[in-house]
């Protein structure tokens, strides 16, 4: 018995790790493909509202985002706490929206323009006055396809409770 045991100890082979780089590369390529790098630096705090009847936004390249919400903590000294609009990486006023939409549309190819979608990412505490102004500007800019960005609630009953 003792002899056999000794033999087993000696026979323990090293784990073959030569396939490890391949596996890692596979994962790497997956993440490289799946990554969307164009994330803007959010300057406004956006706590999205919740909804159940939501649809996925296909083709990210056709979507233009408009953010609205109270400025984040570090910008509050300069911009105050009142909800503001953010376009791309900067704060903007309501009058800039129309020009921004037109400029975004110009950047897209002719056949893609009618499919352009405006995604409104607004905080749920923002007053409708601001959102209505944005909507009016969008209508003036002929950007009629919009999407109210919202989250799927984890618990549907929470949708009807008063604090949400």
């Amino acid at each position, binding site marked *: 018995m003792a002899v056999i045991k000794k033999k087993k100890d000696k026979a323990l082979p090293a784990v073959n790790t030569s396939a490890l780089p391949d596996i*890692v590369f596979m994962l790497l390529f997956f993440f490289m493909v799946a*990554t*969307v790098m164009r994330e803007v630096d959010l300057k406004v705090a956006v706590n999205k*509202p919740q909804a159940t009847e939501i649809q996925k936004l296909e083709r990210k390249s056709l979507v233009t985002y408009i953010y609205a919400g109270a400025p984040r903590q570090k910008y509050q000294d300069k911009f105050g706490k009142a909800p503001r609009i953010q376009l791309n990486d900067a704060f903007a006023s309501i009058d800039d929206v129309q020009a921004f939409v037109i400029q975004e549309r110009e950047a897209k190819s002719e056949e893609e323009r009618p499919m352009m979608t405006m995604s409104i990412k607004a905080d*749920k505490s923002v007053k409708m006055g601001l959102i209505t102004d944005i909507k009016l500007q969008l209508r003036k800019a002929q950007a009629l396809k919009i*999407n*109210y960005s919202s989250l799927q609630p984890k618990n549907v009953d929470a*949708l009807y409770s008063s604090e949400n």
Partner: protein
Amino acid sequence: MARNKRAIPEINAGSMADIAFLLLIFYLVTTTMDTDKGINRKLPPYDEELVQDPPPIKERNIFTVLVNSNDQLLVEDEYLEISQLRAKAMEFIDNNGDGSCEHCKGYGMSNSSDNPDKAVISLQNDRGTSYGMYVKVQNELVAAYEDLRDQLAERDYGRSYREMDPEEDEEIIKEIKNAYPQKISEAEPLNIGG
């Protein structure tokens, strides 16, 4: 020849895994997998001049939803909770007052809509209404239509409308959409309590 061959050293690939790991971790950290989702809506085109003489719609065919600056709902002159809105809207759309809608299961009340084709939901909010509440109301109204379509699809095709494939079941979806056309109109918001 033999000497030459021996002189070429093998490239050490031992650290390749490390480099790949480094890149992998970088992409892992920077990736945001969040898929953007939201309620799709269409805005009416902007007209400089207001439309003269909008086509008359019978009072019974309009389902008015008002939201004030305190996020309270007034539906058909009645105070309502958000949880009741969907059922109320479905009752209105599915009412079938003139009996022309064959797939409707409504009560046929004389003070509610004629048929889903004529039924219009009119939504008006205040400038002080919170966006969260607005989305919730929109959600309930869209859900009312989707629920009705779901019921119809279940009856006619034994399947759920929400789970149909937009390409495969294009015809069915079109038909069901026509059976319950979504008519939600938004009025200019009021500015009472800002």
